[in-house]
């Protein structure tokens, strides 16, 4: 069945650096959405982007549908960006990746 691979598993940055998170699908995906999972477990939707490029604030999502991959770029990272970022997508079943744990330090 569909699998979603996220990389890197963890990322440590200095405040102000940019982050690039990757998401790869094992088969065609008709939707892709990025989430931030709070320490308590609840999900914050960041961007829903099945193809092309979308921006919101310091976040840019780029999805290349035919290559079955997507990325989330976080510019000028801040300490408050620290946490787990999840990629979710697929076609029939919408599957989550294992996440990228981002740590931003001063």
């Amino acid at each position, binding site marked *: 069945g569909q699998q979603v691979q996220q990389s890197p598993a963890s990322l440590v940055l200095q405040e102000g650096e940019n982050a690039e998170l990757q998401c790869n699908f094992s088969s065609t995906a008709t939707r892709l959405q990025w989430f931030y999972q709070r320490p308590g477990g609840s999900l914050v939707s960041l961007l829903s982007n099945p193809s092309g490029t979308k921006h919101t604030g310091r976040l840019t999502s780029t999805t290349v549908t035919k290559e079955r991959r997507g990325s989330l770029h976080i510019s000028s990272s801040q300490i408050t960006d620290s946490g787990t970022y999840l990629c979710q997508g697929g076609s029939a079943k919408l*599957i989550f990746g294992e996440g990228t744990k981002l740590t931003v330090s001063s």
Partner: protein
Amino acid sequence: GPKVLQIPSHQIIDMGQMVTLNCDPVSNHLYFYWYKQILGQQMEFLVNFYNGKVMEKSKLFKDQFSVERPDGSYFTLKIQPTALEDSAVYFCASSLEHHSGNTLYFGEGSRLIVV
């Protein structure tokens, strides 16, 4: 923004008993989903539901699980009987469309502890 409400937020239940988790999706949404997340582990797809029917389900959606949305009210996940391995946070989500750029909205989760 749009909100998905889940009730209860927490429940402790004896193994073998029945539990019903309730989800109040975004009002005009048509597609509904349940996910399961064991503490510290990956979010796992359980089932999606449209027009009164299960569209897709995973291997985790055991025979003891059922979903329904009677008369457009709550979208429910019922587990009968519960087992210890059902302890997890269950997240409900809803969306206007399935194959699109529409946002999938998630509830805050229902934490189930089976003892």
